[in-house]
């Protein structure tokens, strides 16, 4: 505390040589001059005193035959005096203080913590609407209100907690875990074929099997019946359940115009920029219509993301031109579409034969696909029962 006061009020370090150090110290004391950290190495005395007392030090020095040397003024006052004409430094220090004060009061990073796995982007957007976003003033955030708004906006939200740690907003979220919908086993149903095929395997769980392996079935044929007979001859209804695998033949067609007006990329254009909080400052013109990708590199200090990022926007300017596809290009396009469709529709099927045939008809390339596979053709069909 004393050190701090001395630093604020300012003090002087000096050395005194020759004469009688003891007499000098005693005279200083008797004249009310405060000395501290007095060191005598046999040749000279090094000591500290206040700026105010130093003005009266000549009297004890002269009377003890000491010569005052190496006078250095220290403390806040001398520091200010030293730099008082260096306006740039003062301005810089002032700006630094304001910037630090501003940054300390802002949100730099938003972290969403959830064990149940949530759509982070959607929640981030929703939080931003409620005022919790990068660059938002901490004092303006009403945590209780934000939590209330979020609960209102997201019906699947079970619990939310917004915590502000320094410049980081940590949002803890717990969402409702959706239970798998239970199968309605009360409604009586039949199992019928959803497409033509030759039955290879019947797995009936509930109901009465209506077909056997090796039987040809057409679309809509009853495979497993939901109507059974009791021992006394009376009938009962049940929710038929099972899997019926059959060899099926499937066809699909994909066509593409070989001549059309399209957009061709004229090259790649990258624009770099800086993002401060949510403010983007690009170093070039960005055409939003042709933007293809954005990449961000956030500056990080240990585990904290700083509110500063360098971003790169890659855009691909295009121009409309007459496009003529070669047969190979057309085939590849159609093939990619059909393969994509196959991945979705036949993901559980076992494909044992796959044939493609392509031809150009009237400027159109048509690719025909034939898929022979073994798949589950069972589909539930409710039984209409009169009450």
């Amino acid at each position: 505390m004393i050190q701090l006061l001395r630093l604020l009020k300012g003090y002087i370090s000096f050395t005194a040589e020759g004469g009688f150090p003891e007499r000098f110290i005693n005279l200083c004391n008797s004249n009310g001059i405060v000395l501290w950290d007095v060191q005598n190495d046999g040749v000279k005395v090094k000591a500290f005193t206040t700026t105010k007392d130093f003005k009266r030090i000549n009297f004890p020095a002269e009377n003890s035959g000491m010569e005052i040397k190496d006078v250095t003024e220290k403390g806040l006052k001398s520091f200010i005096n030293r730099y008082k004409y260096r306006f740039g430094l003062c301005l810089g220090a002032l700006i630094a203080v304001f910037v630090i004060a501003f940054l300390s009061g802002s949100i730099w990073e938003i972290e969403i913590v959830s064990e149940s796995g949530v759509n982070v982007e959607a929640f981030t957007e929703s939080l931003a609407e409620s005022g919790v976003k990068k660059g938002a003033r901490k004092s303006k955030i009403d945590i209780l209100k934000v939590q209330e708004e979020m609960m209102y906006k997201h019906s699947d939200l079970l619990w939310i907690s917004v915590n502000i740690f320094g410049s980081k907003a940590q949002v803890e979220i717990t969402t409702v875990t959706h239970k798998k919908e239970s199968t309605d086993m009360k409604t009586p149903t039949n199992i019928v074929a959803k497409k033509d095929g030759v039955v290879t395997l019947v797995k009936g769980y509930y109901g009465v099997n209506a077909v056997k392996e090796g039987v040809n079935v057409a679309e809509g044929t009853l495979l497993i019946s939901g109507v059974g007979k009791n021992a006394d001859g009376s009938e009962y209804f049940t929710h038929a359940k099972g899997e019926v695998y059959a060899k099926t033949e499937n066809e699909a067609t994909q066509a593409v115009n070989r001549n059309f007006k399209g957009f061709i990329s004229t090259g790649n254009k990258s624009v770099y920029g800086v993002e401060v909080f949510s403010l983007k400052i690009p170093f070039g013109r960005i055409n939003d219509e042709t933007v293809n990708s954005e990449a961000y590199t956030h500056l990080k200090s240990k585990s904290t993301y700083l509110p500063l990022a360098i971003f790169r926007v890659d855009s691909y300017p295009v121009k409309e031109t007459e496009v003529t596809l070669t047969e190979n290009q057309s085939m590849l396009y159609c093939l990619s579409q059909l393969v994509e469709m196959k991945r979705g529709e036949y993901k559980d099927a076992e494909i044992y034969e796959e044939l493609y045939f392509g031809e150009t008809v009237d400027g159109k390339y048509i690719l025909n696909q034939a898929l022979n596979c073994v798949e589950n053709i069972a589909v539930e069909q409710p039984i209409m029962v009169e009450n």
Partner: protein
Amino acid sequence: MFNSLKNIKESTESAGIELFGNKRMIVFDCQCVVDYSEEYIVLNLGKLNLKIKGDGLVLSSFSFGQTDITGDIVSLEFERIG
């Protein structure tokens, strides 16, 4: 022993000494500094002189009759004046 202590008390009147290990000591009601170097400091306590021997002795503060001495204090010695 008791007599000598009594004599010291009478001689130094209200002077007091506080020791903090051998690194720091405070002497109250010191009249003046008689001799001073890094190896020893002699303080006047009225009718007695106190000689503090040690190494790297520093007068941390010397004001209003209170003397604060820091350094490696090795011994204290009292000397009668006159």
